[in-house]
């Protein structure tokens, strides 16, 4: 088969099973767009800003565990993608970004819309390619998909000069699925011996704790995690990225850990004697002061990425490889050692944990005058029975979703954990909704964050995406205001959102439905109504308490046991 470079790109994407491309055209990719015009199987989603394309591809990938694909032009097209690529990279999300480049003869001449795409993206991606000849296009695409989706996933950028996509020059096309990249090898699993040792250590615990992160979701290992945790009857916590990996409604689940984690999860971390960390990377928002991190524990770490091991916290035992496989083998081995588990110690440990749970650290003062942001999330959970896909932006609202929307399944919670990118929520919801057209997709956001990618409302109309946007509108960059209240003596520099648009009208002008909810008594009724409007995007502007803060909180430089609870939380329970 003889094909042009552009046709090779499209055929390669088809061979990889790509259903959607999120993109925006421009001079350097017009040949590719022309080839795409003729392609039937692949649907192109036209965003309104290239950042939106990357977040949408990212949201798609997070929702369905398949790589998201982006197509943008040279120069400003690819520079607009930088934030989205970095966001995906920090959370290890598989993504392929195809960027046009000026023709080879102009590369390096400061040509119109020339930018050094590979140079700019090098530190924020798993790998990148600048294609130099037509013959290597197909192979480069195959390599890009392999690299992006295997091992610890991540974004891969393919920069392709325009002349290589010329429709007039055709070459032989063959797509070899089985290619080897000699410099790229992933360790699949660990030796039985090492897994057995870990199993033995786990079963020797008197105060065990399981700490599982986003690697469990990326590794599709939730089922195995649940089986192991149930089998052992151990307490478990999830990171922000891991929420949903273990069902939140289960009694062994202690909630999220870390800076805004629950009292019981953080206290159990501090007190445990064996910690099993799975697909988690000991992020500073999780560990707090590293010198006080799990001071009494032997730590076992399961991860696909060898460079995660002992990067932040020195661990005692590491199992490197695919989390799903390792968890399965670990379960088999723990069956042999289960008789060694000290049952009395374990029930004593559970009693202690239960006493921490009695603190009810997520309780908050209810109000009939102002809408409490937490109650919005609880109401959403109630209406959707916890089954929605929920994306968020960054700030207080993100933490409240993490705390109060009790995710029971993986891939449902979609947020920018590592980079903390405001503007992520709406485009990510586009990707999630396209991945699951029949599921309810909510975007919970703040009045500041939503404005960062608000233009994507237009994309939603074009593709008829019935996303429900819920702003927790507190008239502040709430998370910034909270830090200014705590650490800058209430000097609210630049965190008040003056001149906020009328979001309901704004949504209407984009062709959607806009609503405002400002009374607690209307909350459930109006939200229920908004969510029942199938086929339409509804923008629900919920006016919330502007003074509310996110609790519990571990201040920076403090240990897990030094957290602050909400002033209203139940203080009279004995600290165990």
């Amino acid at each position, binding site marked *: 088969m003889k094909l042009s470079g552009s046709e090779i790109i499209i055929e390669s994407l088809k061979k990889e099973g790509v259903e959607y491309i999120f993109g925006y055209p421009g001079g350097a990719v017009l040949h590719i767009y022309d080839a795409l015009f003729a392609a039937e199987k692949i649907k192109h989603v036209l965003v309104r800003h290239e950042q939106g394309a990357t977040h949408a591809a990212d949201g798609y990938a997070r929702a369905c565990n398949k790589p998201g694909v982006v197509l943008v032009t040279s120069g400003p097209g690819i520079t607009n993608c930088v934030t989205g690529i970095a966001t995906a990279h920090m959370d290890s999300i598989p993504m392929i970004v195809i960027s046009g480049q000026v023709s080879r003869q102009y590369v390096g001449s400061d040509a119109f819309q020339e930018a050094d795409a*590979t*140079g700019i993206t*090098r*530190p924020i991606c*798993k*790998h*990148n390619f*600048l294609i*130099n000849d037509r013959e290597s296009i197909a192979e480069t695409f195959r390599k890009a998909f392999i*690299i992006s989706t295997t091992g610890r996933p991540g974004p891969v950028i393919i920069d392709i000069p325009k002349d290589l996509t010329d429709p007039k020059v055709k070459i032989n096309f063959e797509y070899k699925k089985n290619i080897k*990249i*000699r*410099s*790229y*090898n992933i360790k699949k699993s660990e030796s039985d011996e090492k897994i057995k040792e870990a199993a033995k250590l786990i079963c020797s615990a008197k105060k065990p704790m399981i700490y599982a992160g986003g690697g469990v979701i990326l590794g599709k290992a939730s089922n195995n995690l649940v089986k192991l945790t149930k089998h052992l009857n151990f307490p478990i916590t999830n990171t922000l990225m891991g929420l949903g990996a273990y069902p939140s409604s289960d009694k062994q689940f202690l909630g999220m850990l870390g800076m805004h984690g629950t009292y019981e999860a953080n206290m159990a971390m501090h007190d445990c004697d064996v910690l099993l960390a799975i697909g988690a990377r000991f992020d500073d928002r999780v560990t707090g002061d590293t010198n006080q991190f799990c001071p009494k524990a032997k730590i076992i770490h399961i991860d696909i*990425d*060898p*460079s995660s*091991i*002992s*990067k932040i916290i*020195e661990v005692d035992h590491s199992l490197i490889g695919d989390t799903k496989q390792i968890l399965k083998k670990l379960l088999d081995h723990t069956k042999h050692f289960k008789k060694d588990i000290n049952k009395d110690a374990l029930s004593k440990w559970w009693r202690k944990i239960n006493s921490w749970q009695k603190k009810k650290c997520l309780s908050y003062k209810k109000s009939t005058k102002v809408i409490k942001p937490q109650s919005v999330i609880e109401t959403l959970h109630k209406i959707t029975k916890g089954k929605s896909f929920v994306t968020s932006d960054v700030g207080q609202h993100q933490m409240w979703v993490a705390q109060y929307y009790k995710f029971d399944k993986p891939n449902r919670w979609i947020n920018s954990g590592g980079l903390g990118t405001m503007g992520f929520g709406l485009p990510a919801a586009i990707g999630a909704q396209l991945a699951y057209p029949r599921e309810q997709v909510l975007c919970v956001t703040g009045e500041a964050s939503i404005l960062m990618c608000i233009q994507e409302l237009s994309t939603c109309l074009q593709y008829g995406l019935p996303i429900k946007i819920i702003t927790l509108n507190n008239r502040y960059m709430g998370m910034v205001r909270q830090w200014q209240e705590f650490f800058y003596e209430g000097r609210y520099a630049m965190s008040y959102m003056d001149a906020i648009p009328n979001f309901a009208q704004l949504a209407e002008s984009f062709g959607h439905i806009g609503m405002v909810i400002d009374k607690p008594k209307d909350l459930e009724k109006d939200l229920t109504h908004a969510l029942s409007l199938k086929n339409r995007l509804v923008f629900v502007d919920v006016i919330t308490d502007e003074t509310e803060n996110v609790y519990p909180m571990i201040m920076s430089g403090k240990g897990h046991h030094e957290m602050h609870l909400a002033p209203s939380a139940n203080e009279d329970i004995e600290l165990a």
Partner: protein
Amino acid sequence: MTTDKRHIISILVENEFGSLSRIAGLFSARGYNIHCLSVAPTSDDSISRMTLVTYCNEAKASQLMKQLYKLVDVINVKDLTDETHIEREMLLLKVKSTLKQRDELKRLTDIFRARIIDVTDTTYTIELTGPSEKILAFIDSLGKIKIIEQVRSGALGISRGSESLEIKK
């Protein structure tokens, strides 16, 4: 925290567009210094070999090795520091050489087994290879002699015996 120590690291990397900047970028992005670096193709010209010297503590060194290995272009890496290995560096030095200084310069080059490779009526250009300490000792020994230009290759390293850095990753 353990103290910083000199690490000499060998890297086999795909001889591809951007490989060098990926490695250099990793050092700056993760806060490591590159004391010196040398790169050239190997007998297989699709592969380059790099020798790199950096100063850091043990924990940072082990993290560095993992980060280097994680780079998709990197085929293999090895920290030669704690195993028996040979290091060589080359120095090219242009010095002022007046009539009075010529004997002294000749004597020093003999002692250090260096070679004078270019002569003008006012300068000598000297070549010296050896471990970095020897290079430094030679430069020190020049005393008042004026150095016009100094070029060092940076250290090259190879392990002793039959050990070799494998291509298989």
